[in-house]
């Protein structure tokens, strides 16, 4: 326990980076995820295929492979970004596939009549998605999206592989000197657990408020 208090400043700094990574990449994933979902439910065949390709590719690649590939691969063709930026973009792109799929399951739960009615009053595909279908879809997938948020938090721990000093990496650095893995990693684990618990609490409350009883 003493070892945690002694190194609190470094671990705190790591926690801040973890929170930044989580917040920024989740926000990016949310925006991209809506686009992916729109592609997958679009009436245009080519766009649907594009959405399917995106989801299938990213869901079948381990995030660590993607991170290392992008981080070391892109500079070879002249694109070099800051490690933190690289990590945020890669995690956002990766998680967007999962958010897209969660949203699509929500869209499928909206009854067909809603879409037909939207078209009947002259709304375009985009308008009916935005005003009629997505708001209803979102309400049914609060919990799955919350779970993706928690998964995103845990996945940020991989950013250490591309030199981002997040909570996991700073715990490793502290342990390098102190050689007390059990208190250090239990401490870091509790911090991750608290983030997940907070996310679970928020999504639980949101779901109860937003749920549509059909």
């Amino acid at each position, binding site marked *: 326990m003493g070892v945690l208090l002694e190194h609190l400043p470094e671990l705190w700094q790591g926690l801040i980076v973890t929170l930044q990574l989580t917040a920024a990449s989740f926000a990016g994933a949310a925006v991209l995820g809506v686009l992916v979902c729109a592609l997958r439910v679009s009436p245009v065949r080519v766009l649907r295929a594009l959405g399917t390709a995106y989801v299938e590719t990213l869901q079948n690649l*381990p995030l*660590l*492979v993607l991170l*290392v*590939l992008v981080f*070391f*691969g892109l*500079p*070879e*063709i002249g694109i*070099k970004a800051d*490690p933190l930026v690289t990590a945020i973009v890669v995690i956002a792109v990766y998680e967007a596939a999962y958010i897209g799929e969660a949203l699509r399951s929500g869209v499928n739960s909206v009854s067909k009549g809603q879409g037909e009615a939207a078209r009947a009053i002259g709304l375009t595909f985009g308008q009916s998605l935005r005003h009629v279908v997505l708001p209803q879809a979102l309400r049914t997938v609060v919990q799955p999206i919350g779970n993706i948020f928690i998964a995103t938090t845990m996945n940020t721990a991989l950013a*250490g*592989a*591309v*030199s981002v*000093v997040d909570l996991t*990496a700073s715990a*490793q*650095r502290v*342990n*390098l*000197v*102190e*050689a*007390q*893995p*059990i208190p250090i*990693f239990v401490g870091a684990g509790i911090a991750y657990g608290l983030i997940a618990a907070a996310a679970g609490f928020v999504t639980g409350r949101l779901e109860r408020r937003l749920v549509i009883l059909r």
Partner: protein
Amino acid sequence: MKWFVAAAAVSLLALSACGESSSPAVPGATSPQSDILAKAPVATAAEILPGSTMEKIKQRGELLVGGSLDAPLLSQQNPATGEVEGFDAQMGKALAKYILGEPKVKIVNSASETREALLANGTVDVVFQTYTITEERAKQVAFAGPYYTSGLTIAVKKGTTGITKPEDLNGKKVLAGANTPAIPAIKKLAPQAEIITFGSDPECIQALKQDRGVAYVQDETILIADAKKDPSIEIVTKPFTTDPYGIGLKHGDDQMKKFVNDWLKKMQDAGVWQEIWKTSIGTVVTGDAPAPPQIGSVPGS
């Protein structure tokens, strides 16, 4: 092509992270490495004290060694034969022979962050993994040895100027392996340096070549091997630290520590230590084997 290389490197990294590996004695094998082990000493029955850790290992029939599978020259798994080769790996096998009469080891792939826990809970008997003896660590584990002394040095991209000593790293981006003694050493000698870490040596080299940092601080042996393979990098200083590597043992096991120290002394006196050095580290470092470090000469050992 470069993409392909990157992808291949990534898959290799993933493979090297795979669990554990067992390397039984190969009957009839006549590689130079197994010839050396034939000369390695075997403990007398009287030295295996009743009720001791050594006796338990002997009854089990194999030595559980915490080590790496991806450290060139020290402990690296040969993908063709499955054998783990290098200085640390050979020392582990020689210790197994000392206890069991045959070099039967099971290498448990341990990481810097788990070594202390693996020793404490008995998952491994010993750790041979460039385990630098420090006083902090000696509070958690017992160290026999030191059995090898190494030091950190600096590599740069060929043609880089202005870096000739560790202090020159101040204010610069410096690469280091995650969980290596390079991190505290840089913090001490060049407190204004920005330290950038990656999990493995090939990644650090790649980052150096992509200008993610101007210098790479790493163990001299590893850097010499890197510079031999890749002419675009060069080493700019002599070693500026002394890292005594110890054999990690369970904390408080004085019997075992004395036993391993006695073995190490016999290894040095019989010249087996020197031969193991020659067939591993000595394949890239020129000249004769160095004098082995004095056993017990380091605080914490």
